[in-house]
């Protein structure tokens, strides 16, 4: 069974040594006699304040951990039969409570570097959006997705231009993905009981519904939505959507033509890199379409420790299939349609609107930052990470910071 193979691969490997635990009340003299009888001479006593354990292990047949009633018998990988015989001798000693193989152990994942607070989400802290003086005011930001729940309390009083490209459906978001992404890109500032989660809270929001109420969409509708965003003069177009690609697959000329047109027209299209990787199993899937187009910025997802997310696709196809930049994409808090109101989600779909919002902040900070200039500013100001460019591109996208006084 494939699952059994995977589970076997994940099981910890034995070192070849043994861990012996003595019964309570067995004195140290009795412990030492037991170890000497079983393993022969070469017994060492380890105390944390006195000795170097690795060196002691290397030269001893057994190491007794002082005051614990536990001993380590370092094994030799090539002496498995000897270790088995040793285990049998110890099992027959009534002073021994338990004897187990010793396993290699590894550190757990890095502790999170960022966390949500009552004031703002971790993504806004990590990208510096919360410190930026820019708000996105005066910049048109377009989200192409499942529409929006404009009746959500957090969108009240907000000017939103919306259009549906899905036949027979209005712009109302009944799936939730679009409202969540729009919230991350341009949601409102903090209010009582709800942290700020929108990167560019004063951007002028355009919403193109290109995915239907089930979350599915056709290329034709998506392409039409992209053209609409460009023609509306949106400085940023956020596309948290896509399909998987095969390694080495060439990009779609249709998406590329619109990406290039956008850059020429002063728009920047950012797209989710995709979620098909299973990195803990060694699988890195290629960036999906349309993010694999050379003129569309591909966004990877990071977790709260600024490690690449388990699922985030990587740049393994050259000629456009590279990851360009990375942003928070795990445990992302944002709004969803009524009555639920809020939800935490993960995915490159959540990373993409972070970058879109940051692009709007940059565009608001300098009217010259449009199209290719905006692309360059985002990648050149990104925080480099100690991770392969294949996975995170230029690094963690950043907001424009106030000048140092």
């Amino acid at each position: 069974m494939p699952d059994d193979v995977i589970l076997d691969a994940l099981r910890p490997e034995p070192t070849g040594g043994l861990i012996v635990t003595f019964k309570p009340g067995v004195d140290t003299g009795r412990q030492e006699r037991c170890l000497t009888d079983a393993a022969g001479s070469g017994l060492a006593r380890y105390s944390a304040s006195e000795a170097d354990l690795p060196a002691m292990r290397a030269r001893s047949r057994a190491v007794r951990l002082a005051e614990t009633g536990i001993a380590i018998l370092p094994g030799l990988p090539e002496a498995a039969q000897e270790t088995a015989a040793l285990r049998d001798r110890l099992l027959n000693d009534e002073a021994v409570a338990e004897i187990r193989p010793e396993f290699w152990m590894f550190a757990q994942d890095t502790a999170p570097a960022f966390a949500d607070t009552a004031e703002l989400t971790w993504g806004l802290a990590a990208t510096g959006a919360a410190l930026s003086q820019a708000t996105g005011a005066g910049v048109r930001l377009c989200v192409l997705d499942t529409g929006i729940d404009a009746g959500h309390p957090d969108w009240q009083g907000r000017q939103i231009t919306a259009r549906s490209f899905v036949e027979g459906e209005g712009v109302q978001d009944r799936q939730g993905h679009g409202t969540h992404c729009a919230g991350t890109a341009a949601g409102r500032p903090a209010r009582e009981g709800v942290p700020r989660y929108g990167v560019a809270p004063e951007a002028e929001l355009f919403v193109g519904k290109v995915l239907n109420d089930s979350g599915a969409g056709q290329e034709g509708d998506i392409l039409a939505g992209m053209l609409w965003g460009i023609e509306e003069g949106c400085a940023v177009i956020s596309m948290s959507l896509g399909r998987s690609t095969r390694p080495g697959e060439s990009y779609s000329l249709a998406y590329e033509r619109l990406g290039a047109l956008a850059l020429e027209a002063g728009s920047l299209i950012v797209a989710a890199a995709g979620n098909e990787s299973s990195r803990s199993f060694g699988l890195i899937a290629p960036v999906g379409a349309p993010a694999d187009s050379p003129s569309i910025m591909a966004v990877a997802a990071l977790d709260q420790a600024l490690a690449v997310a388990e699922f985030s696709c990587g740049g393994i196809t050259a000629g456009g299939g590279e990851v360009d930049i990375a942003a928070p994409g795990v445990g992302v808090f944002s709004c969803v349609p009524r009555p639920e109101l809020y939800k935490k989600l993960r995915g490159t779909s959540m990373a993409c609107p972070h970058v879109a919002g940051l692009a709007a902040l940059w565009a608001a900070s300098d009217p010259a930052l449009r199209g290719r200039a905006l692309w360059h500013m985002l990648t050149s100001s990104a925080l480099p990470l100690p991770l392969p460019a294949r996975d995170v591109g230029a690094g963690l996208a950043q907001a424009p910071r106030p000048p140092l006084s």
Partner: protein
Amino acid sequence: MAEISMTIVLTQTALSRPEEARARIEAVGVRISRYLPEVGILTGSGEERLLETLRHLGEVAQARPEHRVSLPPLSGRRPQ
């Protein structure tokens, strides 16, 4: 032969004569559902064999099956 949806991209040259290109594509049997003449992109449907025919038209830079995009159910457990 299976009926499929397709995405067709015109060459840069054909962009200057978009209606002529559209007529040529319709003439080979493609039913056009959406046309973006500003960027020379069409979507439509027809028999799968038409893709090969389209690729040999001078007006066509790329002809591919139209892909669909599909999101997973909205859940914190599944990457979006």
